[in-house]
């Protein structure tokens, strides 16, 4: 078995030390990422963090200035047809030709995908409540987003790439339809990658996440593993502090005098032991939300 085949069976996407600059702006720096087959992968980061640039490398729309990108074990820049034929892609811009009618764009797009499922496409169209005779330019932003989602899904892709899919979709579609589709695809053993600002959505859908900030991956693991490794402790010390002492795995400290709240990363028992060593009483203890994890990591970066 060749190397590429071995790689493709283990992971859908393999990115090694990928760097990319636009002029003097560094968009990605030494990014390494492996996304396993199956499941939902969430890519989270702020504006300009590098999420879309990373997705475009996966789609073969940017060549790797240094490092390498393999999708299904194939270089997407050198072999776009082989890679793109197996991907369903919904861009952030929803930039489909707006002069076409819904039915026309379905027929046109179908030509490019041998695996296009006409029956499924019709089901999606009805589910999304799209009039086949409507021109896309006459659709609302939300309806246009549904058209894009339909086009990305109708050939039952092995890999679904959604760049900010929630943008433009109303809450009903976002919660009920998008979530259901994403879960169905993942349950069928296919892979979904989606980028989002909406961390509650990522928390609800993703199995694994990568947090990207300033072109670097600052966190990458299974979501539950990440959530279990971040803790918030409120400690009461015997004596007041102007600046609370550091304990193992501290990301951020907030408070004054006797009572301080710590955001920590690490094993819970070890963190509790470290707190006791400082003769501090644990007043409150909780896991961090993804939102808190994101903010604390980005702030620290």
């Amino acid at each position, binding site marked *: 078995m060749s190397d590429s085949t071995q790689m493709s069976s283990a992971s859908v996407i393999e990115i090694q030390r990928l760097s990319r600059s636009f002029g003097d702006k560094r968009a990605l720096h030494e990014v390494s990422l492996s996304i396993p087959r199956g499941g939902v992968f969430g890519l989270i980061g702020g504006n300009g963090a590098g999420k879309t640039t990373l997705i475009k490398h996966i789609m073969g*729309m940017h060549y790797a200035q240094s490092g390498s990108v393999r999708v299904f074990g194939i270089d997407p820049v050198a072999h776009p047809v082989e*890679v793109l034929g197996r*991907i369903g892609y919904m861009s952030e*811009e929803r*930039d*489909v*030709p707006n002069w076409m*009618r819904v039915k*026309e764009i379905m027929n046109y*797009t179908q030509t490019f995908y041998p695996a296009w499922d006409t029956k499924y496409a019709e089901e999606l169209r009805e589910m999304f409540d799209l009039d086949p005779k409507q021109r896309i330019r006459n659709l609302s932003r939300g309806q246009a987003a549904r058209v894009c989602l339909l086009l990305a899904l109708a050939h039952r892709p092995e890999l679904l790439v959604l760049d900010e899919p929630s943008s433009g979709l109303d809450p009903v579609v976002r919660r009920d339809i998008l979530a259901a589709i994403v879960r169905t695809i993942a349950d069928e053993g296919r892979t979904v990658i989606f980028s989002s600002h909406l961390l509650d959505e990522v928390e609800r859908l993703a199995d694994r996440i990568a947090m990207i900030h300033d072109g670097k991956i600052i966190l990458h693991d299974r979501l539950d593993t990440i959530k279990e490794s971040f803790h918030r402790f409120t400690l009461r010390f015997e004596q007041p502090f102007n600046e609370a002492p550091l304990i193992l795995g501290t990301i951020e400290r907030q408070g004054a005098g006797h009572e301080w709240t710590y955001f920590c990363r690490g094993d819970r028992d070890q963190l509790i032991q470290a707190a006791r060593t400082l003769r501090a009483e644990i007043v409150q203890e909780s896991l961090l939300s993804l939102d808190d994890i994101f903010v604390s990591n980005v702030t620290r970066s």
Partner: protein
Amino acid sequence: MHTITAAMAWEYFARNRWTLLLFPFVANLMPIFVLGALSGYSVNFGSKEFIGIYLGFVLYTTAIIGIGVLMTQGSISRFYLKPLSTTTMVNFFFWGGGILVATEIACSIAIWNNLFDANWPIAGPVLFAIALWGSFQPLLRVPVKSISGIVTAGAIVAVVGYWFLSRHNELEGHGKNYWHNISSFDLLFAAVAISVGYGLTLWRVRWDRSGRQLTTLTDRIEETLERWLSQYFTLSHTFSSPLRAHRWFDFQTRTFMLPLVCLLFLGAIWIIALGMAAYHQDHKIGIEVIFACTNITAVAQLIIAFIIGMVMIQGYQWNSGRKMRGQDQVAMKPSEYRIGHYLHSLPISTTHMARAILQSAAWSIGASAVMMSLSLGLLWAWISLTNFNMHTLIKPEIKFWQLAIISVSFYVLLPFALMNNIATFTLVVNRHVWLPPFIIGTVVLFAVWPLFVGIVLVAAVLGLLIYCTNQCLKRKDVTPLATSAIWCSGAIASIALALSFRPEDLGIASVIAALLGTLTILPFFSLPLALRYHRTT
């Protein structure tokens, strides 16, 4: 910034640094090449042929410069949410654009005059350009996307165009002259066109800014027609291959404009010519109008070919590296991305995409060529039936069929070369800022040493062609057999074009004709490379 106008002017010039140079450059390209090619011969600028050439140049330059200023100005609606009065906005777009158009045209003709001692009038074309600019503003500032828009645009072109051509006695077919003296009527005509245009633009922008829509009777008819047509003409079939699908897409999006404009022009010309012949009961007038206006149709074809080439930016463009820098990334609106993401995410090879684009161009130009041939054939039939002495139109040593074959060959080759090379150029150019100044330098040198620079250009284009062919063969974009066929066709076309001139006229004109042949086959090899380069930024 001290004033709002200064801030808007700064934004305009800062945003369009290179594009502002590109359009006047393209507008001057053809006149400088043609005049440069003819500079080695003893030419009579006062002859009716040269007045015709001059008119063609003025119309072409006005259109390209006008389109350039419009495109660089962008949509007025982006200022709607700024605390600006509508009058300030309209003044900036209307008068600012008008001054720019007038200046660029005056400078262009002054350059031709200086380089080639043409002594062509400047004031007339400038007045015409301002009047045309002003009359079109109500339609363009708040775009009319309906049949009524096309009808109104046609009416404006007919009225202002007739005024301009009649100043040169162009439509009377005899006694052509340059427009040196601007009469009071001309000034009044221009003033009325500009005033009406300004008032209507202000009114339309006010309506649009306040969210009101102007629905005309034709809009309602079109809406009804659209609803009715959608019952029967929604695309229901699928395509047998991605190449065919993309060819259909490219034709629908870009290249259909060429045969459509050709059909509208020729249809209008024939109706006017037949009407004039019937009114005056004189076949001569009708025949002369068609003969003169066929050349104007050819110029219109070139302008449309240029626009189609530029549409490549609009349609296929997407976030190239340059636009990703700094604030641009955040500031860009989704509409500015056009459909690049969708197109480039489709699993179609770049080779097939390039082939589809070239085939769509060939279809549209083929359809136009058939219409042109048909028009010339009908003209020949009319001439034969009425025993009209055609030597009043063309020189005795040239036969009508020879002229028709040469004309149609140029109608085919010139738009094809222009359309596809502009498209290729625009896909690559924004990553190589040294290209525009390099080409501008070449054109300036051509005006001084036409034969030497002409030969260097042929050599350079040939070198580029060899490089692109080699790359395409390596990447298997074309088969060796297809490459041989394309090269043979190009060689035959180049030699035939070069030899189409009389032996005593062989020289720079032949070199330019050979260059046209080479440029016609260049896109077969350069477009796949440019698309690939563009697709994987």
